[in-house]
Structures are given as structure tokens and as C-alpha cells.
């Protein structure tokens, strides 16, 4: 039996390796192909509301109709470019602030007493026990005109009129940074915690001041954690829909909202699919390039 499996190339190891591929096939590749298929169709008043791509006409003739107009449409109308660029901008700013807050937090936890670390990490993960939606709603209660923050500021006498915070870009950044901060802290912590502290001792022995040791040893070694954290924050933030629609100014143009409008308001599934495909390409291509460059660099160092 074992020999048979071996001949078929189905060793335990390859079966285990197949699991993630199967997962990706089922939950990424197949849905992607379906979305790609719809993006080449045209909309229709029907169920489902788009034309089928493949058509049997008469006998033994399979007609394939590809509509490239949806992608051309995205280029013609500047709405889409503006929305893509603004989403990338919002995600970049949010990622920057997550890093600014997350790095010191992760660093402090990683360097704290080992017995305290678990409790501190638990506190970072604890908010996940409450629904994401409710936590965003809680910010409405904090930021609104007669909310906690404004009332507090009035009470201490810092202001005498409430500041309009809800429905501003500020509220969106607060919401995104708050919601995604744990995704920045977790990989950073994992990285910083593993670091070999004797390297810092060696640096100190060689005359590095603590801040130089941080800049020359800790920071470069933690870059993979920084990169992982930034990607985990940046990618979902680009497509964020819930936070801007609940906390943001209605005028904040983001691609998630544009996609919603195409899909729900315009009822144009093909254009919505094209928007999603282009968004994916926007994110995946630079990332692959980045990864490749990094692999090459890492390979060079090892050799």
C-alpha cells in the first residue's frame, strides 16, 4: 500500500503540502476566475443580471463573447482613477500611523518581563472578542458632537463648542488605525521577540550607543516584521468600506464605495467585477515585484 502511494507520488509530505494549494484553489482561484468571467460580460435585466459568456448557438458551435468595454470604461472615467489613488493614499497614511504606534508597543512588549508578555499580548488581542462592527459603532459614540470626547473636552474647558469630528477624514483614520493596529503589532512582536539580544551586547562592546544599536541592529533585523505588518494593514485598508461609510465624510472617495455603487446602485456586475480585478492587479503586481527583489537580496546576503 505504502509502495503504491509512493509510486503515485502521494507521500505524506506532498499531501500536507497539497492542503494549502487546495485551499487557495477553492477559495481564491475559483472565485477569482468567476469574477474575471463576469468582468468580460455585459449587464442585463435578468437573473443573474449579466449575459452568459459562453453560448451554444445551433449545433456544435460554441460562441464566446468577450466584452472588453468594462475595462475601457474604467480608464475613460476619471472617477475610478481618483478613487484608486485616494484609497491607496488613505491606506498608506493609516499604515504609517499604525507603524508609528505599533512599533513601540510591540517593542515594549517583546522586551518586557516574560511573565507579563502573555497578559500584554492578550490585551492586544482582546478587542477581537467583540464584533468589529460594534467597535466601529462605539467610535460614533465617542466622536459625535455630544459624544464622550467632545463632552470631556468641554468639561475640562479646552473648548466651548463641540468640534465636528464624526464624518470627517480624521474619524476614518482613527477608525482604521484603531481597527488594524493589532495586525501591525502581532507580526512585529513575533519578530522582535525572536531577536538575539546578544547581538546588541556585541554592538555595545564595539562601541555602539543604545540608540545606534537600535538603528544599526534591531531596526534592520525587524524589517521583515515591519513589512509583514504593513502589508496586513495596507491591503485590507485599501478596500475598506465599513469604516469610511460609518465614520467618514460622505465625500471621501474610496474604491470600496465605488465598487459598492457599481454592484448595488448601478446593478452593473460586470463593471463591478472589472473594478475588483483592477484593484487586485494594483495590489498584487507591486507586491510580487517587491517580494522578488527582496528574495534576490536575501539570496545575495546568504551566498
Amino acid at each position: 500500500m505504502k509502495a503504491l502511494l509512493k509510486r503515485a507520488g502521494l507521500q505524506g509530505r506532498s499531501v500536507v503540502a497539497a492542503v494549502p494549494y487546495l485551499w487557495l484553489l477553492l477559495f481564491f482561484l475559483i472565485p477569482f476566475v468567476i469574477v474575471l468571467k463576469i468582468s468580460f460580460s455585459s449587464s442585463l435585466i435578468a437573473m443573474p443580471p449579466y449575459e452568459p459568456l459562453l453560448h451554444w448557438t445551433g449545433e456544435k458551435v460554441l460562441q464566446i463573447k468577450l466584452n472588453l468595454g468594462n475595462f475601457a470604461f474604467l480608464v475613460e472615467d476619471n472617477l475610478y482613477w481618483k478613487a484608486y489613488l485616494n484609497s491607496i493614499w488613505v491606506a498608506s497614511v493609516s499604515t504609517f500611523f499604525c507603524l508609528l504606534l505599533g512599533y513601540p508597543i510591540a517593542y515594549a512588549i517583546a522586551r518586557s518581563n516574560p511573565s507579563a508578555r502573555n497578559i500584554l499580548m492578550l490585551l492586544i488581542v482582546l478587542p477581537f472578542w467583540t464584533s468589529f462592527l460594534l467597535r466601529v459603532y462605539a467610535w460614533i459614540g465617542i466622536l459625535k458632537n455630544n459624544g464622550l470626547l467632545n463632552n470631556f473636552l468641554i468639561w475640562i474647558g479646552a473648548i466651548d463648542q463641540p468640534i465636528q469630528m464624526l464624518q470627517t477624514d480624521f474619524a476614518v483614520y482613527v477608525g482604521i488605525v484603531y481597527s488594524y493596529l493589532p495586525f501591525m503589532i502581532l507580526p512585529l512582536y513575533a519578530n522582535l521577540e525572536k531577536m538575539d539580544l546578544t547581538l546588541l551586547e556585541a554592538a555595545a562592546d564595539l562601541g555602539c550607543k543604545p540608540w545606534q544599536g537600535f538603528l544599526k541592529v534591531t531596526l534592520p533585523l525587524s524589517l521583515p516584521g515591519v513589512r509583514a505588518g504593513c502589508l496586513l494593514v495596507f491591503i485590507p485598508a485599501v478596500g475598506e468600506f465599513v469604516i469610511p461609510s460609518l465614520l467618514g465624510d460622505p465625500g471621501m472617495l474610496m474604491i470600496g464605495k465605488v465598487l459598492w455603487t457599481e454592484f448595488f446602485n448601478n446593478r452593473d456586475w460586470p463593471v463591478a467585477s472589472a473594478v475588483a480585478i483592477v484593484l487586485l492587479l494594483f495590489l498584487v503586481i507591486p507586491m510580487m515585484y517587491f517580494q522578488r527583489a527582496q528574495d534576490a537580496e536575501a539570496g545575495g546576503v546568504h551566498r
Partner: protein
Amino acid sequence: MKNLLKHAAAIAALSVLLSACGKSKQAATDESAAPAAAPAGKEQVVNVYNWSDYIDPEVIKGFEQATGIKVRYDVFDSNEVLETKLLTGNSGYDVVVPSAYFLQRQVQAGVFAPLDKSQLPGLANIDPDLAARAARHDPGNEHSVVYMWGTTGIGFDRAKVKAIMPDAPVDSWKLIFDPALLAKFKDCGVSMLDDPTDMVGTALLYLGKDPNSEAEADLKAAEDALMKIRPYIRTIHSSQYIDQLANGELCIVVGYSGDVLQARDRAEEAGKPLDIGYSIPKEGALMWFDTLAIPADAAHKDAAHKFIEYLLQPAVAAKNSDFVNYANANKAATPLVNADLRNDANIYPTPAVAARLQPSLAKSAEFTRALNRTWTRFVTGR
């Protein structure tokens, strides 16, 4: 209606319920004793998908007791979400409540089963005038029954508006569309519906044009009118304004009739009563219908008909109107509706006011795209 905030509150309430686990278990045993009255064997169910806060919960209990059919009740807060589920097919729902101008297109797409009118004797209670208006969306009322209807008008906090401008023309769209007037209320808070069909239609009414015009020039004129007032609008949302108006964070809203009254009720419940008014402006207003319909692929069509028939009972329809602050289309129910609501000319308009109300009809796909593009420019155009 259209109330995401309330929805989240419901989720919060649910989690509280779940934590009170012991209690709910007891409720479950009580419940399991009740359906003994129902015919033995397969338990009948009906899956209902309705707007949030759009039925008196007592009515669902009453239906379950009267028929032994269990109601699985689900809520949505936008027509678009409902429509997407319906167009995808196999929604699993037996009764849904689309607004008429959405229903119009969904009927064309073949989403709904024709109603079996022999199972719905209560249809005789429907106001023939309203049925005729609704038939513009669903010819012959073959697929739908009007559940509630209302208008898109001006809601306002009387005290705040008076403090800023004692003679503010709250009975005219000028209050909204005259930039010089609206500018006065900017800091007090102005909100508008996130609904391009209603808002562009309303702008066209103000300009004295046909609100259902698909002409490019008309759309452009409406866009210009909207753009001029954009700087003075704080929120553009279809449900948040209810709570914001009730909290005193807004002065003037363009909103749905019943929702504005719900804001008044909520302010009262919170112990900070506000004098919130609603007006159908003299230039006219858009009227809309929310209709009951049965998807073609519904699994429990008989139960669905029974549910609709139950809602058509005058006493039941009156109960629902009292709860949601909207007028129903049930003529026999009108005398049973709470007098405050029944005598409110903004909810149950007099014939003279009703004559100024215009339908909001379904638009072509090309126009819808142009309309939504206009709307995006307006919303983002600070």
C-alpha cells in the same frame, strides 16, 4: 425604515440576550410547548425579509398564533441589498418588501411569482387610488400588494430653525435648494438622503420639471442645483439622520415621512422631547410605496400568501402603522389607526396635498448609470 443604527443596536441586544443564556433556554422550552396547537408533522414556516423597524413585533406573534406557521424574520436596510439577493436567485425568502420602483425592474427580470388573488380576499381593503398609483410600477398589481407608503419631504427641528430664521419657509423646497437660505443652517446641521433617484427627482420638482425625466439637460440642471447647496450639507445618509435629528445634532433633513416622526418619538423616549416637524413642500414631493411580493423561487408560497393576507387585515394594518408611523394602503384600516397619525395631513394627506405627490418610476440602465455618476460627483464634490 432604512436604519443601520437600529440594526446594530439589535445585534448588541442579541449579544446581551445570548449572555443571559439561562433565561433564553427557558424561553425556548416555553416556545416548544406552543406549536402543539399546530397540525402535527411537518412544521410550516414562512421566511420574511423586511426593512428594519418596519413591523410591529406583536403582529408576527399574532400571525404565528393564528396560523401555527412559524415566521423566520430577517431585515435589510437598503433596496439595493434586497435586489442583489433577489437577482442572485435562491434567496430563500418567501415574502420580501421592495420599494415599488425597484419592484418594477425586478418584475421585468422575472424575479417574482404572480399573486394568487383567490387566496387574498383582503385585497378588497386596499385603497383603489393607491392601487392605481402602484400599478404604474406593477401593471395590474399582479405581483405585489402595497404595504406602506410615504413621501420624501423636509424634516426640521422647529426650535432650532426658528432661532436662526423665524420666518424660514419650511413648506417650500426653497429652504433646501436656495443656497443663500440653506447656508444659514450649515452649522446647525443639514442632512440629505443618500438616494440619487429621490434627491435628483426632488431637485427637478423644485425646478418645476418632471421628476421622472431622463433628459440629459434635466439631469444636468438638477446636478447644478444640488452642487450649489453641497457645501452646506453635513451628512448624506439614508438612516443615520433619525438618531442625529433625535439627538439634536441636526436642524434640517430631507428625509422619509415616517422616519422623521420616528426621530420625534425617539427624542421623547430619551426624555429630551424636541418639536420635530415634517412637511410636504408646496412644490410637491415624491411618494413611494413599499410592496409585499413573493419571489418566483419561494419554497413556501402558500404560507407566504397567508402571511400577506394576515397583513391585509384592517386591525393588523392599523397596528403596524401605529408602530412604524407610516400610512398603510388599507382603506378599511384608516379609522382604526391612532388619531394623531390618521389626522396628520403629512402622513395621511388630504386630497389637495395628495394631488401634488408624484411617483418615482424605475429608470433605464443607461440613465441609472448617468444618475449614479452625477450623484457620486455631488457627494464627493465639496
